[in-house]
């Protein structure tokens, strides 16, 4: 397992995400209401670039003619077949028993902790006073 500094925190504000290539793999790093999550950019159902889908909410199951969107911004809808995945867990809400998106650990760490290592930071000059998004692969 290696740890990679993939972004400075201000680069991925809440409600946005960034697709990065790390060690030959594309990973989407999401900021959901201030918390960071990372998913492999590959849908476990059909292989689409999952993280290029739309960030959406969940339609709450309801009575006939009742429409309600909940947990706005917490789900990712695959661009191919529209299946939704919970960003925080990779859990499929379409076929929960068979399908799960690959999730990676991601954390926010202070620059002064990071300079102690070990980590891989090919493109980042880590400044002691800033916060960084660190991905573990």
């Amino acid at each position: 397992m290696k740890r990679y500094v993939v972004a400075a925190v201000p680069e991925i504000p809440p409600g946005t995400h960034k697709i990065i290539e790390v060690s030959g793999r594309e990973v989407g790093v999401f900021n959901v209401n201030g918390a960071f999550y990372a998913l492999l950019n590959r849908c476990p159902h059909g292989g689409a670039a999952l993280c290029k889908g739309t960030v959406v909410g969940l339609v709450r199951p309801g009575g006939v003619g009742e429409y309600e969107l909940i947990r706005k911004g917490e789900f990712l809808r695959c661009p191919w077949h529209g299946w939704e995945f919970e960003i925080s867990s990779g859990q499929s809400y379409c076929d929960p028993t068979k399908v799960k998106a690959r999730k990676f650990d991601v954390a926010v760490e202070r620059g002064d902790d990071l300079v102690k290592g070990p980590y891989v930071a090919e493109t980042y000059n880590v400044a002691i006073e800033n916060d960084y998004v660190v991905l573990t692969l």
Partner: protein
Amino acid sequence: MKLPFRGAVDCDIHPAPPPMSALLPFMSDYWSDQLQNRYIDKFGFTLTSHNPLLAIHGRPDWRPKTGTPGSDIDVLRAQALDDFGSAFAICNVLHGATTLFHGDMAAAILGALNDWLAKELLPRDRRLRGSISVTLQDPKLAVAEIERCADNQDFVQVLLPALGELPIGRRLYWPVFEAAQRAGLPICLHAGSLYRQAPMGNGWPSYFVEDYVTQATAFEGALVSLLAEGVFRKFPDLTFVLAESGVTWLPQFVWRQDKMWLGVRTELPWIDRVPREIIRERVRMTLQPFDAPSDARVIQRIVEHFESDDILLFSTDYPHWHFDGDDVVPDGFTSELIRKIAIDNPYATYARLPRPVAPARNRTEVSA
């Protein structure tokens, strides 16, 4: 093949609609007077898609010496009931008044038809049961008619054409579904159209054959409408019986329906499980006509695709011509499946049919 036992429930037979002269006594003075003064009582009220002169609507050996197929009660009793050993047969009388644009007149004629059925036809043989004919132009009238007829236990379902004025699942029609559910009556959607729209999605047909062949798509449209509009969810105790649908289109419909639902299900938050499960529980189909080749092995595979023995209901579709002799069951049906479709499923679907206490006897035992 033949039915291997007696005691089946035939879920779709067609006594001929009576002449208007037979219905006039069951109408109010106003409507009786109107129909006669305007010579409407002289009209045939024959449905375009159900012309009794056509061969398909009357098997040659099932045509009475005089009159239209299904018009002679003695012939019907012998051929539809005795020959198949049926314990019950459900009469779907297809009347042209269903298609009238004048909703009040349609309701008056169909009301008379229901009374004629209850008082003239059904009492002629205790094996006969009836369907309540209604028009949906004014759902309030349909509700009133269901409530008026429902106390008569000889009525076992409500009859509607597969193609009406609007997709059948629309909320406009929910009071009718509620009335049927309250009365414990399934809704039977029968092949046929009011011809408010072209029966084919791409326009009006030139030939009968186009209309007949595309009836299966009419049933698909009805079923997806009921699912999407939430009727199955809203009316949890209401069963829909598809009569003369052709049957074998259902597996591909279910596969396509499930696949599409997975992708766009956020449109329909009230569909909270795979549609095939809902269809298996809530939809029934009458056996004849059964669209399939005669090869028993092919038919067995088709039956497997239904993934349920609960869906089919035995029917002869008498006097329509879909098979010869008494080979009413497609080759390849197992004896267990035949028992399900001819006995268990009809009694489970139609709570108003009194199920005999003793099990149906095998035909060979009867003759021994």
